[in-house]
């Protein structure tokens, strides 16, 4: 039983990380129809900002964490301004390829300017401590991750529900032209969506760094692929769906690790992706998208 609870917590922690990244992707996608492959590089840049902060002598986690979050938001807005604004009206594949191009450029810039090899970022080593709640040994990191993700999602929901810009973003996910007719600037709505997604990416970067302790140029790639899949499972563009998809994926990952015998370890991906493909064949439009919302884009 203890073991099950332990693994359940593990799954929650993984799932909340995926959810955080998937939310950022879904925010941008729901407005611009852009599959932002460069989201992983936003995470990587946030991670490298921590590395640089430590390099110039800022050692306190309380300072490094906000720097990472700010860097994430800044980089996301920069990407939007430089690369994604010119292709805003182009077909989806164009946006996809632009995002891919940005991701390749940034990865190689980091390789050229810093190093192709992993660099240690030891600032959050405190967090890997284990604490005991009753009989359960829980890593402080997981607990914190759950709390912060819950807070971040709560904050996002508050922002989207109770601010004018949030309202505009929510409206833009349905019908952008009408939002513009109401006198809201398109650029501001899109920039805000990017900033928010960068913010979430920054938070995700902190937790990934805390878990791995080091960073390399392809740092953001794996989590973003997973987050993409989370988005699609949940229903692309649906924010609730992104969270649900992320959590599902977290549980799937942990379940496969726990249940699969050691000698079939190499089939982990095969099983995970088979289940994902099965889910999508069963519900092609994702778990949380109602068909009616797709309108003309149906099928």
């Amino acid at each position, binding site marked *: 039983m203890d073991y099950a609870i332990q693994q359940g917590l593990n799954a929650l922690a993984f799932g909340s990380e995926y959810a955080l990244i998937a939310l950022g992707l879904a925010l941008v996608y729901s407005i611009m129809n852009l599959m932002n492959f460069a989201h992983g590089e936003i995470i990587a840049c946030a991670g490298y900002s921590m590395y640089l902060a430590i390099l110039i002598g800022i050692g306190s986690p309380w300072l490094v964490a906000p720097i990472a979050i700010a860097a994430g938001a800044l980089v996301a807005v920069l990407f939007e301004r430089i690369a994604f604004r010119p292709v805003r009206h*182009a077909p989806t594949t*164009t946006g996809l390829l632009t995002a891919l191009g940005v991701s390749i450029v940034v*990865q*190689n810039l980091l*390789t050229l300017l810093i190093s192709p090899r992993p660099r240690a970022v030891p600032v959050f080593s405190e967090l890997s401590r284990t604490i005991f709640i009753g009989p359960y040994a829980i890593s402080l990191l997981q607990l914190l991750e759950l709390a912060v993700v819950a807070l971040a999602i709560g904050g996002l929901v508050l922002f989207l529900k109770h601010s004018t810009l949030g309202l505009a973003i929510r409206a833009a996910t349905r019908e952008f032209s009408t939002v513009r007719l109401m006198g809201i600037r398109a650029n501001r709505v899109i920039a805000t969506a990017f900033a928010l997604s960068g913010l979430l990416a920054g938070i995700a970067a902190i937790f990934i760094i805390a878990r791995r302790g080091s960073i390399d140029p392809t740092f953001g790639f794996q989590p973003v692929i997973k987050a993409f899949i989370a988005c*699609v499972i949940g229903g692309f563009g649906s924010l609730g769906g992104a969270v649900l998809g992320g959590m599902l994926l977290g549980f799937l990952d942990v379940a496969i690790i726990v249940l699969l015998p050691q000698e079939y370890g*190499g089939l982990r*991906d095969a099983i995970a992706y088979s289940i994902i*493909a099965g889910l999508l*064949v069963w519900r092609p439009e994702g778990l949380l998208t109602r068909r009616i919302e797709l309108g003309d884009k149906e099928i």
Partner: protein
Amino acid sequence: MSVTTQTRSAQKTLAPWMRSLVGGLVTALPVILIGIVILLFAPAYLVRVAFAAYVNLLIVLGLQIFMGNSMVANLGQGAFVGIGAYSVAILATPVAMKKLSIPDAPFGLADIVLHPALAAGAGLGITGLIAALTGLVIARLSGEAATIVTFSLMMVVHSIFIQWTDLFKGAQAFFGIPQVVGLATAIGAATLATIIARLFKDSASGLHLRASAESLLAARAFGVDVFRLRLLAWILGAVICASGGILYAFFMGTINARAFHFELVMTTLAMLILGGMRTVSGAVFGCIALALLLEAIRSVESGIAVAGFQLPPLLGLSGLAMGAIIVLGMTFRPRGIFVRLELDELLWRLFARRQPRAITEGKPI
């Protein structure tokens, strides 16, 4: 009768499929010419580079057949390239070599060996079969779901390559495949694939499929069986991708599952979208442009001498340039180089436009 309609009617005297055939040949012309120049003059290492480019071209064409006509993004072509390559590796490698590398292969595969041509045919057949089975599912999906399912397909196939060591040698290289093809074969295959892609695009099936990409509901209302056409395009595309894998295996003699993974998918996808995915000419020219550029940058990256100075190797430069080209290309030509018209159609237009001018200037035609 105006001159424009005259040229149109000249164009129309050919049967439609003949026009596509000629168009395909015109599109393939640079492929053939570049190939011949390399065959005649280039040093051995350049032949290798060119061969890889021709394999990429085959994969890009396979991708275009499905993606360009149905407009469903496909991230799974690496699976079929891999299946093709491993099929011939397992079937055509001499028994003595297989006793060394995969002695425990199931179904007695370690004890049989096929003639390379037969093995290639079997490889295409196996790929076609697997494509037909997976296509039953994928052809029903659209949008992001379809994209992720194709990606999942590749991940599953890759995992099986890695995990099933008895048959695929796992993460290690599979060696000893007979090296029976040269660049000339690749040029021939690429030309053939270009023509096939063009014939498919211009056929009734291709037209219906393209119509379904514009408006699925309207196409269905006109009685287009979208599922059947997507399945057809999926299988055809997969087989052409596999032919790329087969040639690659027969040229290199050694293959590794890593070669058929994400990097291949991304490179070929970039080539297709940069060129313009709706046209076969886009596939061809996107591939030529990116292949040339990548090779040029790669030589700079490894450190060259400029005006007597030896530049240090700059790791990551080729990636940087490739990314920059993609971003800039998409900024200035969001729909690719060849947006809607094929190369030959553009040439027709050019001539049709030039003739009236000649008349107004009073020159004899």
